[in-house]
């Protein structure tokens, strides 16, 4: 098998996490939203589109201002990151401070996924260039535009000095950060890594997906027989991974990561989901478990006809027909480079709260799909192991397995 490596990695505890998305800031807000099943998608407010679309936006008033000394990093992307980091109940920032005290700032890495970085601000800069024929003073390429800008901001904000980089593989970006962080910890390069992803709305993605003719004109309805495309969202899902320690045995663990390529097409998934199958099987192998032991799969389920079909064929191939699965993008939109981080946190919530989220917007599932597609959220059921799929442009596939760790 092409991706049958990375088998000698131990489970890595997730010691803290927080999230921002259209449901608000913090994991409790997202959990409440998942339970209610009421879509957070609305008509666009940040950007006026010349076409009908729905977006999952974070209200401007929820976004904090960056400290004066880090103003040069100020973008919508870093503001979303900062809101997530500062959420008091989730206490991600204090968990990172504890990790600094325990291991030292040089032992903590920052690996952040994004597909947008500060492109919204770069677009604003181009409007200024168009109008005034000169580059505005506020534009800073290396602290706002580049893919690594948000990772570097978090590193400076938290005064960390370990390895710091961005991963940008479109919609699998932030899932890949968990795989990369797992390796940094497993090999002893780092003792802890801040991972996940941040993406913000911009004209480029809204109009880009429109040009591909896959923007839904109603709030997206993944897996539904009448699904007709995606709705874009924004947000951040940040997770702190630490090296295994007896104090962390009660934490949710990252049990396995699978990565693969379709080697098929730039935007269309392989029809039989060959890369998706390989990523899921690779994650199962690394976690050392059988497909039957997965209690729930959080699907990538974007809402396009082809994506959902390809993924469900892959699910059939790996799990047969009895697996519990659902897609959550009808609730908060497709957050692109942040999707893997946010959906890892949804998986974490399933394990913490013993529930399976429903598929927001689903009326009747496509008849060709096998698998037990959960329509309304189910609470009070034991969930021990969750798989989270994310697939990006270029056939870049990831599958993560989260669960409770048993020695």
């Amino acid at each position: 098998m092409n991706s049958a490596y990375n088998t000698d990695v131990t489970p890595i505890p997730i010691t803290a996490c927080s999230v921002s998305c259209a449901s608000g800031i913090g994991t409790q807000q997202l959990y409440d939203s998942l339970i209610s099943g009421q879509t957070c998608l609305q008509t666009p407010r940040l950007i006026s589109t010349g076409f009908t679309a729905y977006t999952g936006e974070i209200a401007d008033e929820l976004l904090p201002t960056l400290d004066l000394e880090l103003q040069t990093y100020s973008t919508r992307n870093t503001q979303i990151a900062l809101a997530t980091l500062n959420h008091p109940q989730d206490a991600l920032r204090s968990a990172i401070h504890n990790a600094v005290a325990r291991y030292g700032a040089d032992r903590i890495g920052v690996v952040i996924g994004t597909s947008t970085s500060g492109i919204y601000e770069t677009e604003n800069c181009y409007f200024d260039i168009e109008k005034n024929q000169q580059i505005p003073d506020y534009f800073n390429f290396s602290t706002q535009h580049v893919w690594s800008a948000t990772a570097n901001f978090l590193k400076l904000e938290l005064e960390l000095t370990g390895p710091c980089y961005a991963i940008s593989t479109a919609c699998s970006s932030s899932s890949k950060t968990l795989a990369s962080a797992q390796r940094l910890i497993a090999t002893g390069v780092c003792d802890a890594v801040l991972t996940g992803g941040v993406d913000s709305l911009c004209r480029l993605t809204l109009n880009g997906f429109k040009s591909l003719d896959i923007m839904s004109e109603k709030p997206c309805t993944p897996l539904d027989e009448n699904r007709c495309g995606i709705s874009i969202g924004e947000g951040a899902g940040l997770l702190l991974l630490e090296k295994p320690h007896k104090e962390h045995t009660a934490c949710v663990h990252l049990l396995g990561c699978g990565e693969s390529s379709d080697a098929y097409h730039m935007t269309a998934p392989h029809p039989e989901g060959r890369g998706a199958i390989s990523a899921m099987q690779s994650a199962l192998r690394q976690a050392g478990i059988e497909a039957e032991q997965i209690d729930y799969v959080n699907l990538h389920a974007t809402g396009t006809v082809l994506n959902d079909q390809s993924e469900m064929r892959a699910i059939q191939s790996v799990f047969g027909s009895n697996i519990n699965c659902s897609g959550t993008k009808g609730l908060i939109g497709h957050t692109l480079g942040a999707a893997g981080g946010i959906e890892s946190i949804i998986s974490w919530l399933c394990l913490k709260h013993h529930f399976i989220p429903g598929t927001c917007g689903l009326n009747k599932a496509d008849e060709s799909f096998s698998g037990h597609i959960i329509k309304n959220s189910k609470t009070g059921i034991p969930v021990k192991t969750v798989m989270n799929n994310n697939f990006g442009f270029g056939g870049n596939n990831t599958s993560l397995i989260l669960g409770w760790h048993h020695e």
Partner: protein
Amino acid sequence: MSDAIFNQAPMSILGTGLCIKNNETANSLGFKDCALDASLLPAMVRRRTSEATRIAVSAATRACSNAATDHELPAVFVSLSGEIQVTDKLCQAIAKNEYPLSPTQFHNSVHNTASSYWSMATNNQFPMMAMSALEDGFALGLLESWCQLQTGAEKILLVVYEEEAPTHLLPDYNWEPCAISLVLGHTESQLATISRPLQSTQESGYASENSIASNSLATAGFPLLRTLLKNNSGTYCIEVSHSVLPWLAEVVIP
């Protein structure tokens, strides 16, 4: 910096590949066999892909050929700005309200464009990583490669590339379009071994005189290439980044 860490499982350098788009630049730097040659890409794709993707594919093809390995291996692609020329065109269209955007330009603006076309052209289903970092990009690509080799990969392809920056957006940037590629592995190499890179705690004179604007992160691999080209047996500690606190790696030529 302790020798003990440098000695941890060094990587074998099985092959190298370079692409410098401008011949004059290549000559002035003393590098040979580095012309643009993206013939691995199907003609239809080649015509429509960017300079970034074509230089990355050129260097990667050369590294695999130099290592006498097929193309089916996991890969780590690293670039600071990725497909900046396509992004520039899309942003200009947005500013001029020229909709709809080009769907081809849109999907070719993602950071993993080069790695995706590479995987498609080589029918390679191994994982493709697309990273970005500032002055440390080459070093962090080496680190990710080392981590993958330590956790089960047999061989890995590293490609670090940067295309020319659009001058009207970045007038102070003067990047020579170039890409450097390495095939790294476990098996014994006639060429050299390279350690896991480590960040120094002492400032480098080089970095303070050389900004990221004048040196793309791909050029951080030049000291390594020069050391390999000289091919004098010995142990060398070389800089593999342009940052003020440089990343260092130990290279052993047998």
